């Protein structure tokens, strides 16, 4: 148990030591999105009746930051360790594959939640979305960041170079995030794109998360919970199997 805790602590300490880049930078990025989108669209778009566009946008931006940072945390930590070679210290230690998994994923969850909280607090100055069901908010934040943290572990193990990881981020994570309803409700999309969005797990994470704020969502939060939960179980199982086999870590 101490092995797991130490590895988790190491990951958190690493984030803390470069918090300017790991926490402050993503908060600033989210604020820029908010400033630009809300300035351009505030007068033109009303997604939910009686909700200002800026207020609607905030939960999406918070969740987007949570997901992206959770992914960035495990994936970049692993690829850095692999490229510099210091992953050997973890591999030489009596750390079980599931402890390895838990430490990296929970550190991703921690970073996701801290960045998410930072974005939320920073955006409060512009608009204050209601907090209808805080438990749903926390639940989707934790499940979503765990899902992306686990995906980050897979990407970090699979990638052998930084540009492969960047490809993963730019061609999978970014499109799925932007096409998930961060900036809009899928009801405003044409039917084809609406249908396609339903195959995007990010859509359920954002929609469920937003439900916690407004008590309104595009789809039942229970259904979103089931989708996100199932995705997490499947991906975690896959990641654990990968770690257990030693894929690309133990040659």
């Amino acid at each position, binding site marked *: 148990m101490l092995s797991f805790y130490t590895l988790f602590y190491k990951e958190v*300490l690493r984030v803390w030591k470069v918090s300017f880049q790991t926490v402050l930078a993503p908060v600033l990025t989210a604020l820029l999105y908010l400033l630009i989108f809300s300035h351009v669209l505030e007068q033109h778009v009303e997604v939910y009746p009686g909700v200002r566009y800026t207020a609607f946008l905030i939960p999406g931006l918070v969740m987007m930051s949570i997901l992206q940072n959770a992914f960035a945390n495990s994936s970049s930590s692993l690829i850095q360790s692999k490229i510099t070679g210091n992953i050997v210290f973890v591999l*030489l230690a*009596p750390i079980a594959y599931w402890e390895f998994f838990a430490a990296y994923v929970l550190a991703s969850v921690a970073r996701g939640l801290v960045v998410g909280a930072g974005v939320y607090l920073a955006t409060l100055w512009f608009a204050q979305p209601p907090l209808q069901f805080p438990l749903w908010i926390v639940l989707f934040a934790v499940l979503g960041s765990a899902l992306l943290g686990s995906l980050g572990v897979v990407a970090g193990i699979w990638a052998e170079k930084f540009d492969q990881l960047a490809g993963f981020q730019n061609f999978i994570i970014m499109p799925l995030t932007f096409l998930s309803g961060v900036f809009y409700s899928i009801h405003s999309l044409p039917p084809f794109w609406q249908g396609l969005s339903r195959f995007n797990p990010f859509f359920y994470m954002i929609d469920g998360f937003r439900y916690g704020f407004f008590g309104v969502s595009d789809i039942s939060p229970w259904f979103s919970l089931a989708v996100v939960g199932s995705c997490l179980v499947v991906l975690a199982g896959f990641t654990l199997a990968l770690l257990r086999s030693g894929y690309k870590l133990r040659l």
Partner: protein
Amino acid sequence: MFPAVDVCQVHKHFGSLHALDGVDLRIDQGEFFGLLGPNGAGKTTLINLLAGLALPDGGRMSIMGRDVVKQYRASRRLLGVVPQELVFDPFFSVRETLCLQSGYFGLRSNDAWIDELLHHLDLADKADTNMRRLSGGMKRRVLVAQALVHKPPVIVLDEPTAGVDVELRQTMWRFIQQLNRDGHTVLLTTHYLEEAEALCNRIAMLKRGKIVALDSTQNLLSSIAGCRVKLRLAAALPDALLPLVVEQKEGDYILELPSYEAVEPMLAELRLAGVAVQQMNLEQPDLADVFLRVVGKGES
């Protein structure tokens, strides 16, 4: 008593390369064991398999009786490995690095032993320095300290003195020898054959994934009978001695003699021919000779 290291018919392939080809090796507790071989012979592969950094394609391996695959957690607790590559985590200081490593091995309060390690490896004044700011030799010593945080009964050192200056090398060997006297088993790979000769009680030589020699250092050395004589002569070497020449450079000759008894007849031959000896050295065979004979010239 379990052997410290037991390797039984281990095979490892990398694509078409048969990196380890049925290696058998047994190292008893308390030994100071040397693993030698040319580059690419499979030394590091064997160590990686023992440490769980790679998985074998066939065969069994255990550390103090614990199977390295099936009982990997137990076997890793019993093993400390100093990797060959100079790796470090740039985020942390020396002390943080050692505390984290202790934690990975399940040790909560290990400060006393960490302080002792820092002292023995001349790192005490660098304890709070970031790893990035250390010289190569110091990073190497931190790697040694990391391998020892959990006081493993079996210590593996893969080329530990590469890039370390003479003084520090002495400090490090004194400490490792002390650990060996205290009962730790040491497995060493090195390119410095004189180090292996001075330190190891037993030596295995590896070539193309196979063990080609395995004996006590003493037996390996005495397996090469005879000696070499280096001569500087005032005139040319008499014809009768020409078959003994292994090397010639201007007036210097190196002769290989089957035994020490052959020295006197050689001198008699020179006297008879009236050739004066200006300089003479008798060289005993060392591990390098054994290595070259076993592993083959041009491959070291």
